[in-house]
């Protein structure tokens, strides 16, 4: 019962915060609501027995990406401009509504093979075994550092003063 209440609280918080990001005109408040929505998603991960991912979500999304976005808003000084909608507002709404209807139709008309096994209480060691063990993900895991290194270098090059 507690899980049901927690799910609805988190779901309402996430959807309301995401709607605020899209509808508010003040960019700074939109960024704050985006961080709130990320925190709610961390709660959803805890409800899904993914404690490691919840910690990662708080560290990377709330910590790193939230700070990055707020920093970019301050550096570009376009807060007075706000976030007005362009002329594609109605087509965009129709496309989003059609996508939502299609996904809902697919989800509700599929017979999911729900497993009856109960998930483990802590997932960190199991994820590590899955990543590094036999038939694991060692090669993608080694590509990710190269991607991050390229990201750091190109971010520095892009933002550097050219004088």
């Amino acid at each position, binding site marked *: 019962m507690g899980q049901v209440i927690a799910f609805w609280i988190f779901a309402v918080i996430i959807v309301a915060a995401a709607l605020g990001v899209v509808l508010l005109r003040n960019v700074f408040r939109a960024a704050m609501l985006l961080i709130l929505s990320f925190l709610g998603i961390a709660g959803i991960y805890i409800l899904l027995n993914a404690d490691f991912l919840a910690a990662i979500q708080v560290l990377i999304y709330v910590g790193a*990406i939230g700070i990055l976005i707020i*920093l970019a808003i301050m550096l*570009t000084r376009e807060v007075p*401009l706000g976030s007005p909608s362009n002329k594609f507002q109605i087509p965009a709404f129709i496309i989003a509504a059609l996508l*939502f209807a299609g996904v809902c139709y697919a989800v509700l008309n599929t017979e*999911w093979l729900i497993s009856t096994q109960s998930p*483990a209480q802590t997932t960190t060691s199991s994820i590590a075994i899955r990543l590094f063990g036999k038939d694991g993900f060692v090669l993608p895991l080694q590509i990710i550092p190269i991607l991050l290194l390229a990201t750091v270098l190109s971010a520095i090059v*892009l933002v550097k003063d050219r004088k």
Partner: protein
Amino acid sequence: MTIGLEHYLILSAILFSIGLYGALSKHNAIVILMCIEIMLSAVNVALVAFSRYIVPTEYTGQVFAIFTIAVAAAETAIGLAIIISIYRSRETIDAGKIDLMKW
């Protein structure tokens, strides 16, 4: 009433649609990037929900979510660097006015 896989998938679909609407209908490039982040988070919720309800002992969905988060962090850093760079040279981050490569 219990919470099942469908609840999480519909929550994910709602979030993805909100993000898609925002990404298509906004002028401010930073807000567009924020909406793309919402869409990526929605996909992560769906992946973790599938992992929890279809294969609770395999953790493949959670591993995929970890890779998605890493790529999303890289994408945000590069995107914001490009936006700041454009702001320096053109004094605007209005996606409608950044038309240097428009045919």
